[in-house]
């Protein structure tokens, strides 16, 4: 088991939780909020696509993919900072 003081354990989890909340907020916006306003968004043209349609067909998906790779880097950085990444012991 990793040598981790009680405060560090709490702090590691606090930062992990904060990262989770940030990413789920972005996720919520691109999963629900954007599509709720699909009708008005469709009046905007995005390289030929109506924007509301584009977000459902491609936009949200691209955000999800990029977001997940970023999340991994950030979570790994948190783990490394607290010395609990797997290659550290």
């Amino acid at each position, binding site marked *: 088991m990793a040598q981790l003081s009680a405060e560090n354990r709490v702090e590691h989890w606090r930062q992990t939780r904060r990262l989770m909340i940030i990413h789920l907020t972005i996720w919520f916006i691109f999963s629900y909020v954007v599509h709720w306003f699909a009708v008005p968004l469709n009046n905007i043209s995005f390289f030929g696509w109506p924007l*509301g349609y584009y977000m*459902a067909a491609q936009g949200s998906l691209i955000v999800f993919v990029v977001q997940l790779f970023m999340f991994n880097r950030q*979570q790994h950085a948190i783990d490394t900072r607290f010395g609990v990444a797997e290659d550290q012991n």
Partner: protein
Amino acid sequence: MGMQFEGKSFIDNLPKIYGVYTGGFLAFFALMAVLERFGLGADTIGILFIAFTIGIYAFIGILSRTMAVEAYYVAGRSVPPVFNGMATAADWMSGASFVAMAGGIFIAGHGYMAFIVGWTGGYILVATLMAPYLRKFGCYTVPDFIGTRYGGKFTRFCAILVLVVASFTYVTAQITATGTIAARALLIPFEVGVWFGLAGILVCSMLGGMRAVTWTQVAQYIVLIVAYLIPIFWMSGVQGFGWFPQFQYGPAVERIMELEPLLGVGTAALEPQRGLSVLTTLHATPREGAMAAWQFVTLVACMMIGTASLPHILMRYFTTPTVRDARNSVAWSLFFIFLLYFSAPALATFSKLQLLDPTLPTAIIGQPIEQVLALDWVTRWSAIGLLAVIDQNGDGILQINEFFLNPDIIVLATPEFAGLPYVISGLVAAGGMAAAMSTADGLLLAMANALSHDLYYKIIDPKAETKKRLLTARVLLLVIGAAGALVASLKLTGILGAVAWAFCFAMSGLFFPLVLGVWWKRANRQGAVAGMLGGLIVGWWYLLAVRNPDAWYGIAQPWLGLNDLRFGIVGIVASLVAMVVVTLLTPAPDAEIQRMVDEVRIPSGQTIIGSMK
């Protein structure tokens, strides 16, 4: 000659092995294309494609047979993230995604794209809330996590129950899909096709369990993505839409929106045809109003939360070497899934534009009816009842509401609009088969593993020796597969309905017990049991109630437009309330469990189950 399926040299060689495999598959495709030129018949090409690909899967399945527990249940925890990503993508994308997605968008427009958003965004939940923690736990199955985290045999049993209900609903749909494709490609009756499909599925999983399924799923992913993308690139290139259509189809969408009012899209057919639809929904314009938006987002929510609760997906992340790899492999899974899903709307758009736009040579709407009836592909699909062109107003011209089709044929038929050779159809059939088989394999394995590991070994006979456990697992695989094929041959529900129900069952019963097991230390056994049973029972009751409004279930109208595809919303609310209330009314879990949760939350160190031995 025995082959190593673990260890450094095997892992290092993986890119080479699958590179050669992909090259081999492309060479086979080229060979078929050449032979078609020399007069090889369409039927023979279809049979060769199915036989060749299933032959390869069977070969991998047999090579990777094993009698070791760790290899059988979690592929020796040695699958690198990128390959696990491909395997998960194949596990994930079912026959419905492959065959029905583009056709659904073609016919139902914007509303149908809730599936695309839902079936990708769910992976954010998987990565942030679940996969890394379940991997750290070191369990073999999803009920294994529930049973160990909350304790108690009955808790474990409840998890097995939800898993079986959700997965069995799903697997019948997949076996139906393999049966349909096998029947069409091999020219055999559907009832026989179902059993043939099952045999193909079992040969991949029986001997090697998770290890065999992993390496066949990677192979199946390659076949299905090649089979989906080649026709799109080819068709788009030939038709002059550009060679990378996914990034260029904006103007095509605009053009369709311009043509729709001119062609009168939205007028119902004069005489509807059974089982076929005419195009009445606008392509890119969402329905107006809060109800439409609500239905879109609730369907998205069900598909996403269902994704994060489906055991056959979660268990794929038990197979990576580390916690960090589990997390990375979720991102790769999403990337590989994205490649197919962001192509589906492009395919639907080009497919529609080709038929609608009078300036294109492929247009049929607005053309003289005899000319359309003489087209090769119209004759062929009409003959098997999946398409109908009827001049219902008798003006000799084909109107938009006189063109009937079964939307499932869009993926297969679109290359034919563009006049591509039959070899493409053979390729697409092989891809659809790969998609359906790989998902069915994952589901059957999830069920058989839960029953053999959790029910038989952990609950009934904890002293059972390894050989007996693995034998039980295989017998169960056979029995569940046969039961699935039997139900599939009865043709009870449509493919899509069954798939959506599986998601709703999984989210109703499993989502909160899994998430709160990691994120809420206070969550206890009584709460988890209440969450699983409460969610499952309420969800099930609501499904029955909205499906049978005249029966005794007590609901005349669906609540807030939540129909049978969205019953998970009701189930999951019940599950959350039951779990929180019951947990707070009963004592907190003991110090041992609390320490276990602390350990789950950090990546390093031994797995929880490993440290308990």
